[in-house]
Every structure is written in C-alpha cells, then in structure tokens.
C-alpha cells in the first residue's frame, strides 16, 4: 500500500472512531449511515460486481432481525410465551444475557441468511436480468407476509427485543460501533475479495456469463458463494438493527421492500456500480441528501428523493465513481498509451 493510501485509510478510520464524539447529537444518523454503507456494499457484491441485480436483499435484513430476536429471547425465555405476553410479562435480561444474545444472535443471523441465499439462489440463479430482480423481490414480499402471519414470532404486531441494560446514550454508542465494526470488516473483506481470482471470475460472469461458462468457470458455485457472503453481512446488519430498534414489525420494518430495500440500490447507483468505493460514497451522499430533505423539505421529501433517483438513472448511470473515472482515468490505472511501461509489465 502506498503512503498516500495509508494516510487516507488512517484518517478515515480515525474519523470513524471519533465521529460519535465529534457529532454527539447525530449518533443515530451516523449509525444509519453505516447501515446504508453495509447494505450498499453487500448489494454491490452481486449487483455491481457479478451483474445480478437483486431487489430482494431486504429479505436477508428482515430475516436477520428475526433470527437475532429469536436467539436473544430464546436463550433466556420461551419465545412463544414471550410474544404471547407482548410486553405484558416481566422479562429481564442481565448484562451477560444481553450481550450473549447480541453476539450469538448476530452470528446466527449472518449464518442463517447465508444458508437462505444458497437455497434461494439455487432456484433464482436460473433467472437472468429483470427476471432475477423480480424473482428475488417476490421472495422478500412473500417472506414478509408469511412472517406477519406467524404468531410464534409475534405475527403482524412484530416483536420486541430486550431493552439495553445500561443508559440510553451509551446504548447509542454501542449500536454505532457495532455497525461501524461490521462495516469496516465488510469493506476490508470486499477490498480483498475483488483482488482475488474469485473476484475476477464474478466480474467475468457479469460481463459475459456464457463466455465464462464456456471457459469452464464454476459459474453457479461462484454465484451462490457470492450471494451467501453478501447475505451474511446483510443478515448481521439486520441483527444489529433489531437491537437498535427494540421493537419492530414484519412489513413496515423488517421486510420493508420499498424503503431500505430500494435505498440500498439507490446508494450504489449514486456512488457507482461495480466499484469498491462507489457504494460507500453513494451511501454517504444518499444519507446526507435524505437527512437534509427530511429536515428541510418535510412533506416533499419523497418527491425530492424520487427526483434524485430519476436524475441519477438518466444522467449519471455510472454514478459518482464512474464520473470520476471519466474525469481522472489515471487514478484508476487506465492507460491510454500502450507502449509505455516495460517495467510495469509484471505488476
């Protein structure tokens, strides 16, 4: 890594750690920013890097929430009885139980969602283009309906997580750092992944899947693994959200296909599909825009958001990073000259 990069990454990391202290009144917004970064980066693994545009990744978010809830409640109480009481009974969690639930619940959420991605992918990866998008959306919608009729997990009323055993301000801090750690791990993970042969293979699938098949690349295997990895992070993020929100409902919150389910795609389009930094930059832009419109244009915020989506899709299809690549190709290692660089040959 070059010195320049080291300084950049160091600064960003320091900022990440210091952010909730620099902006103590914005802890929740900062936490949401990291959530957006996580879901955008995971969406781009399949959408941008592999060419499979899923509209159903919200399925993993919602499922992650429920898995976390069931695990956290289940290790201390009977889940059925707990949801039956719907807040009426007296249920308390010790510090140990709370954090054990958090650790196990988040891990279980990630793993369970990865498994789901494998199974769903087995069926839906036969679909291409818009059919894949709609097929995965269908899965998310159906799951929301199913869960809202499942009384054991609270049905349409939703389910409540335990309250944080400490004070509220500290709770916000804990949630922020959980998202941030997950986000940083995810970023480092994909930065590594896209450098591997695996990363090149999923790019090949995106650019010409038929050719990749004809060259003997294990296309189905690679697609399943990629989606499972992506689902792991979305599921884990969902688990953190479950703890953050304390109470959540299946349709409005967990399987919210039109809000977060679409926002994650918008973030990636804003920042630039199929690039390492695009989803991160896009998530920041989106979050700033959203906070601004929700605060200053209340009543018109959805119109503004819709307008933003239209402008991006029509005029900036390659997003911010695409625009930057066009303006500054040399930053991206694109050489127009061909006869240079005998020395760079075996880079």
């Amino acid at each position, binding site marked *: 890594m070059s010195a320049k990069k080291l300084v950049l990454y160091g600064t960003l990391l320091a900022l990440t750690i210091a952010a909730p202290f620099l902006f103590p009144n914005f802890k929740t917004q900062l936490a949401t920013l990291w959530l957006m970064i996580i879901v955008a980066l995971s969406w781009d693994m399949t959408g941008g890097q592999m060419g499979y545009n899923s509209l159903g990744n919200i399925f993993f978010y919602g499922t992650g929430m429920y898995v976390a809830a069931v695990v956290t409640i289940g290790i201390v109480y009977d889940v059925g009885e707990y949801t039956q009481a719907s807040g009426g009974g007296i249920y308390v969690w010790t510090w140990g139980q709370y954090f054990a639930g958090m650790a196990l619940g988040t891990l279980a959420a990630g793993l369970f969602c990865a498994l789901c991605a494998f199974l769903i992918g087995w069926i839906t990866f036969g679909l291409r283009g818009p059919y894949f998008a709609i097929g995965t959306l269908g899965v998310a919608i159906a799951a929301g309906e199913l869960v809202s009729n499942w009384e054991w997990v609270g049905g349409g009323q939703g389910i409540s997580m335990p309250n944080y055993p400490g004070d509220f301000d500290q709770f916000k801090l804990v949630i922020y750092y959980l998202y941030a750690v997950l986000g940083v791990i995810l970023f480092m993970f994909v930065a590594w992944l896209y450098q591997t042969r695996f990363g090149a293979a999923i790019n090949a699938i995106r650019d010409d899947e038929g050719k990749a098949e004809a*060259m003997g690349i294990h296309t189905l295997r690679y697609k399943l693994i990629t989606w499972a990895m992506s689902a792991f992070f979305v599921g884990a993020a969902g688990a953190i959200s479950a703890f953050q929100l304390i109470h959540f409902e299946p349709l409005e919150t967990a399987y919210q296909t039109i809000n977060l389910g679409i926002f994650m795609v918008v973030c990636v389009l804003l920042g630039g599909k199929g690039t390492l930094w695009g989803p991160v930059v896009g998530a920041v832009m989106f979050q700033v825009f959203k906070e601004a419109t929700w605060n200053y244009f209340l009543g018109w915020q959805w119109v503004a958001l819709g307008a933003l989506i239209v402008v991006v899709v029509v005029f900036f299809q390659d997003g911010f990073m695409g625009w930057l690549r066009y303006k500054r190709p040399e930053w991206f290692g694109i050489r127009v000259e061909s*006869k240079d660089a005998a020395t760079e040959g075996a880079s």
Partner: protein
Amino acid sequence: MSAIIEVSGVSKSFGGVKANADISMTVAEGGITGLIGPNGSGKTTLFNSIVGYHPIDAGSIRFRSQEISRMLVPEIARLGLLRTFQQTRIYGAMNCVENMLISIPHRKLSLMDAFGRNTAEDHERALHMLEFVGLYEKRFLQSGSLSFGQQKLLEFAMALMNEPTVLLLDEPTAGINPTLINGLIDRLQRANSEFGITLFIIEHNMRVIMNMADKIYCLAHGQMLAEGRPDEIQDDQRVIDAYLGAH
C-alpha cells in the same frame, strides 16, 4: 492416432431446418482436423452440439470414450474441451491482461486457490501468450476497443491460457488481415505441436485449412459430404460443386 472426439449419428433440427443430419466423424488426438462447408451448412451447429450448447436430437458424442452429449457447457469445458466463438466473445470492458488472467484454467483450481491472487507465474504466462499472438503492445488497452481481428487473436490467446486438451476454433482467420494470416497459421501449428493441443478448426479460407489439417470433413446442407486428406478433398468433385453452388 486414436480418436479423442467421436461423433456418431448426430442430428439436430431447428424447427424445420435440419442443421445436422446423421453426422459421424472423429477428431484424432494430437492432430489438426478441419471442418469446411458453404455458409449455413451446419458447421457451427456441430460445434455447438459437441460443447453442449444445445441438446441433440439423436446420436452420440464421446470425448475420450465418455458420453458427453447430455452434459452442460461448463461441465464439458472443464473436461478440457474448449471452443472459441465465430462472433468472438471477450470481456470487452476489461483490458487484455485482465482477459487473460480470467482465462486461467479454473477447473484446476480448488476453492482455496480461487480465493488467492493470481501468481507471478499467471501474469508471466498471460504476457507470454499475448506476445505469442502479437498483442503484447496492446496489453493495457480496453479489449472492446480492439479491432475485430485483434479480438479474434485475443480470444485465441485466452483459449491457450486455459490449457485445453482440445480446442475448437470457429473461423480463426475470419477478419484477420491477409498479411497476418501466415503468422496465425504458424501460431496455430505451434499451439498444436508445442503445447500439444488437439485442434478442430472450422475455416472458410481453403489455403489455410489445406495447409494445416491432417484430415478434413466437408459439410453441405447439414450432411457429411466428404472426408479425407487435404489433397483428396481438394480434388473431390462433390466438394468443388458444393462450393460453386452446383447442387
């Protein structure tokens, strides 16, 4: 020389069009086999049948005595039976080196290997192959911006990078500048002799195929019209008639 591919009694129709009718032929291991025939005679269809692009209506296709006619494209490719496309398919958004690196033989990689980076040896081989087809100077150019002929050469280099056992080439010299064709013939022959790759080539350029092939098959109207050594085919009246359209 023993047969590495055995096609027997293969038929394939598209709606009313009998693209291949009861075709039988063999590709000799280690050799160069040619396939000629007028436009629309069913050459590409036969290639597609062999590599699993579509199910065949009847017959059997065997690779090293193993029945492959019901296998899928990636499975057959992983046996080391590779093809290039008549229309040329490369990853246009990537540069030449990236195209080469994607073409490393994934069938030989374990999942652990796949999660590793390309080795210095991979890079070296990629550059060596690009040099071999004469694209070394263009290695950092976006491959989609290459000319059609250059893209053909790149696709050929990608196929070599994949270390196939048998390579099916669909019109490798189409679109290649006539002055470069001799060089390409030389490279194809070296791929055969130096890398030990069995070649099966569809070609319209008679000079090219007569020069290279040990054995030539000629298709017309989806049927096997003639087979034999180049000199036999060259003098075969049926072949001459087919090409002159007297049929």
